[in-house]
């Protein structure tokens, strides 16, 4: 999956990459972290479907298992991809918030 792939997918990929940008995590920690900063609770099937695509795209990688649980780590490509996506989102958010503020005043 390239940046286009992430752009075309739901925001789940961005949520997972954003979470992993804060450090390596296994599945349960990912779910709790994403729930904490985004208010979105991913199910295990959804989470691993997302991880599978990101891993296939080389944006995340599995680390050696710890007590049967594989932590996942974001790769350099993953950091670049999520940075680009979040920058784009931030630009749109800035423009959108400005226009909304203008409309409400």
């Amino acid at each position, binding site marked *: 999956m390239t940046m286009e792939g992430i752009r075309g997918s739901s925001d789940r990929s961005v949520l997972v990459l954003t979470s992993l940008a804060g450090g390596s995590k296994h599945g349960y920690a990912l779910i709790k972290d994403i729930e904490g900063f985004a208010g979105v609770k991913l199910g295990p*099937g959804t989470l691993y479907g997302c991880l599978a695509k990101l891993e296939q795209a080389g944006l995340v990688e599995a680390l050696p298992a710890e007590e*049967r649980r594989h932590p996942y780590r974001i790769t350099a490509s993953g950091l670049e991809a999520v940075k680009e996506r979040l920058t784009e989102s931030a630009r749109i958010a800035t423009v959108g918030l400005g226009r909304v503020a203008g409309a409400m005043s």
Partner: protein
Amino acid sequence: MKSWPFRCLAKLYPKAWRERYADEVNDLSAELLAAHEVTRPRLALELVRSGFAERLHSLNRARFVAALSASAAVVVLLVAALLATNGFGLGATTSPRVTPVGWDSVGYRDAQVSFPPSFETVTSMPGGIFSVDVPSWSFASGETCVGPSRGTVVCLLPLGQVSPAYTGEQPTVINGVTVYRDGKGDYYAPSLHIEVTASGPMAHRIVDTLTRNRIPGCAHALSCGSITMTEG
């Protein structure tokens, strides 16, 4: 996959995906259930939905790969067919050339040419092959290609027997064989070590069947096929 619910739902996922992630999904499901983060029905529903999504994703990718493979195969076949018929016309004129059904193929050295069954083909070793559609016409000599004034006569002769005047001629390609023609009914095929002299209404049609000798057991033979031997 030792505990409910994922064991019974794992089959919903593609095999490759299952082999890689099933244990992790199962462990995470168990962990979420143990922590009362999710109810069993809700978890089962989520796993079913994800399984179908993964299956769909896998199918789409497989179809894409299959379509890509099929397209590549078609392209390869088309290219092969075009090359076989010299359809690209690289540096040569082209025309559809086939050996018609029912025609007799005869070999001479590295060349093969075909004639209608009505033609009589004789050889005067090592002079060449002479084919003519004029009944009862007899070849006076095996060393030259002199035929009757009427009808069609096609002769295959060793290259060089007639002065090779093809230098500088624009070659044409007949069934993959580069041929030089002098405009007087003589065709020179250096790669087959032969030249063809053809005249009459069927001359071009017969020359169009010229190809490398592919008659089983006949390649490089001095002559073979339905050929009548004559005294040279």
